[in-house]
């Protein structure tokens, strides 16, 4: 039976792009079933006993990624043989049934850099399904954690600061809280404007898995690279990736009226400029507006990003540390706004 990984491996390993030897592994029957296997190995997405050696060889990165407690993320895609993804007009990527998006989370200085957890987003005939797996102590396989778990870790962030946190592996429902659009699960990260194949691969390789590889031209800036865009555009990219999966009219925070998509007008009340708290509770920090132009210290968007208190912090899930560098970018953006902007 011909499998996607085989073709992929062939594409990567053979300069000519000619067919190679199929590898054993990816279990498409399990992927396509309704099963929630207790062990990650049941999917055959990784070489046995090696969390760093995925068989699904379409790797990708994002120009601007979601912050998750300074984890290094490794992202892969498994697309069934003979099927292709395509980029839609609005930039979202439509993956065929049988696709698995695989994302592993870890830190370079935790468990010798092995991932702590791997999350799967599986496109089944009935829709997307999110499954969280936590790697076993011996690092050879990972175990389903439907109910999520807190994992104590100690790591250094890029600025050298040591963090000791109880890292939250999300439960299945929390996966959906972020990956929700009109109540259905959808991928968040892979959008044409933010998606980069890694390694890039040949045009032939891309065309094996994408109907229109030319549409995979990332246009969004890289949040931490000043050469890639202005402070404003990088701040908006950061908000799109870190907030807009909930803060959009069909997302988990639809009732807030705060909408932070890349495509939203950044001068309006609904983008936070002069927006009063709706259901913020303690998240208002005693301030009147989400964004007070020119004054980040009186913008409760900043207050919420810089807090780790569950009654205050945004995002509500997926963060036990403050992303100092991200908050600094947003501070600069707000500080540089004209004070009479609202």
């Amino acid at each position, binding site marked *: 039976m011909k499998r996607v990984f085989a073709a992929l491996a062939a594409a990567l390993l053979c300069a000519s792009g000619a067919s190679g030897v199929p590898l054993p592994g990816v279990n498409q029957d399990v992927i396509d079933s309704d099963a929630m296997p207790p062990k990650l190995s049941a999917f055959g997405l990784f070489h046995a006993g090696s969390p760093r050696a995925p068989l699904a060889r379409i790797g990708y990165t994002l120009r601007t990624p979601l912050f998750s407690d300074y984890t290094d993320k490794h992202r892969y895609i498994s697309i069934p043989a003979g099927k292709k993804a395509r980029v839609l007009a609005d930039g979202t990527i439509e993956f065929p049934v049988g696709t698995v998006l695989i994302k592993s989370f870890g830190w370079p200085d935790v468990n010798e850099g092995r991932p702590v957890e791997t999350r799967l987003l599986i496109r089944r005939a009935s829709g997307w399904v999110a499954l969280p797996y936590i790697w076993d102590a011996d690092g050879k396989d990972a175990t389903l*954690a*439907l*109910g*999520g*778990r*807190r994992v104590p870790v100690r790591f250094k962030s890029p600025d050298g600061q040591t963090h000791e946190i*109880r890292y*939250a592996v999300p*439960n*299945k*429902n*929390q996966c*959906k*809280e972020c990956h*929700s659009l009109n*109540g259905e699960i959808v991928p968040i990260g892979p959008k044409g404007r933010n998606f980069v194949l890694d390694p890039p691969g040949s045009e032939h390789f891309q065309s094996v898995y994408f109907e229109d590889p030319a549409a995979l031209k990332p246009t969004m800036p890289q949040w931490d690279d000043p050469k890639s865009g202005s402070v404003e555009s990088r701040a908006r990219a950061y908000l799109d990736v870190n907030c807009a999966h909930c803060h959009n*009219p069909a997302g*988990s925070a*639809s*009732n807030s*009226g705060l909408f932070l998509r890349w495509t939203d007008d950044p001068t309006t*009340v*609904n983008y936070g400029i*002069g*927006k*009063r*708290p*709706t*259901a*913020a*509770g*303690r998240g*208002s*920090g*005693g*301030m*009147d*507006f989400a964004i007070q132009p020119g004054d980040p210290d009186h913008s*409760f968007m900043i207050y919420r990003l810089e807090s780790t*208190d*569950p*009654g205050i912090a945004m995002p*509500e*899930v997926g963060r*036990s540390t403050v992303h100092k560098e991200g908050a600094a970018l947003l501070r600069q953006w707000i500080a540089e706004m004209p004070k009479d902007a*609202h």
Partner: protein
Amino acid sequence: MRFHHFVLPLAVALVAATPAAAKTIKVEAGGADANEKLQEALIVAEPGDVVELGAGTWSLSDGLSLDVAGVTIRGAGTDEKGSILDFAGQQGAGEGLLVTSDDVFLTNFAVLNTKGDGIKSKGADRIVYHKLRVEWTAGPKETNGAYGIYPVESTDVLVDSVYVRGASDAGIYVGQSKNIVVRDSIAVENVAGIEIENSYDADVHDNIATRNTGGILVFDLPSLPMQGGHNVRVFDNAVADNSTPNFAPKGNIVASVPTGTGVLIMANRNVEVFDNAFDQNGTANVMIVGYRYEHKDPKYQPLPRRIVVRDNAHGKAGYAPAFDGGAQIAAAFGGAIPPVLWDGAGENVIVLDKVGVLSLNLPDVTTPRSEAKPSPADLSKGTPPAALPGIKLPAAMEAKVQ
């Protein structure tokens, strides 16, 4: 033959609505993995299932969530011998329990000391909150979570026989929803006892709202996906001694509610307040105001319209009006302002109760409050709009609480 015509479709409907293998998943407090087992039960439950909480206390470090339609969460009681979900050590999530599926029934357990909201349901149609206790046990504190019971963006909401204490915003808050009943519940020592906000078609009746900052609020706010709040009836409630100093974090709209408010109506249309018993509300038993903040929403209507206040019993009120200039006005009125307070904005504001009404005479909501020219007003002359019909919930919801 008629017999067959009727019975066959009915039988089919019953089979479809009741999964063949509906089951009870029993979970117990205590044990190292009690929290994970509880959350896992809420994930693996199937439509029709009951997740039954044993008696005892779960000390939870993370929020719980339910995303399966038609599930019941049933505890063994709300008091200290019942089923207690204690979030004092919560490290993550914006609420204690989040429900995002339809036809869910929550009954007979307690949620305590969440860092954010107590129980939130979003886009959860036909939800029933019944015999629940949501409480911040140290009483009013600014560090308490915002909302106790918090259904939002839902159609058909029933809140029945719940007890909520200590919310730093609203004890029972229904937002951006339609067809709502809040009844037979007790809201104590919250900033707002019960609040209906940006919602359509609600009955709030037979509740006790006491020792809050404000007892029952009917609000409409700008720049939200659903606005234009209307058709709300507030009746047969006891709204007394709402005297707790406002402890809401500044910036939130309820931080502006004066201590000692009974019922407060802001920027809605077709609101009826009748057959309530008011007493000991130091600012006013009933307050009717426009939304007086700056806003940039051309679709927003900031004025109260077609408001009827009738047949209420008024005890002592107005003796400690907690708004700027209130003390001077009270002094001018001989120590207390009248029990009904209107800012002067809006249309068809009708008060048929045989008590005094004080108008601040500020018909334009952009006029600052400092320019108030308070005077007694007679609002009994207008023609009341036709009475609202009352809320009917789907029979299956009512059956759950019978």
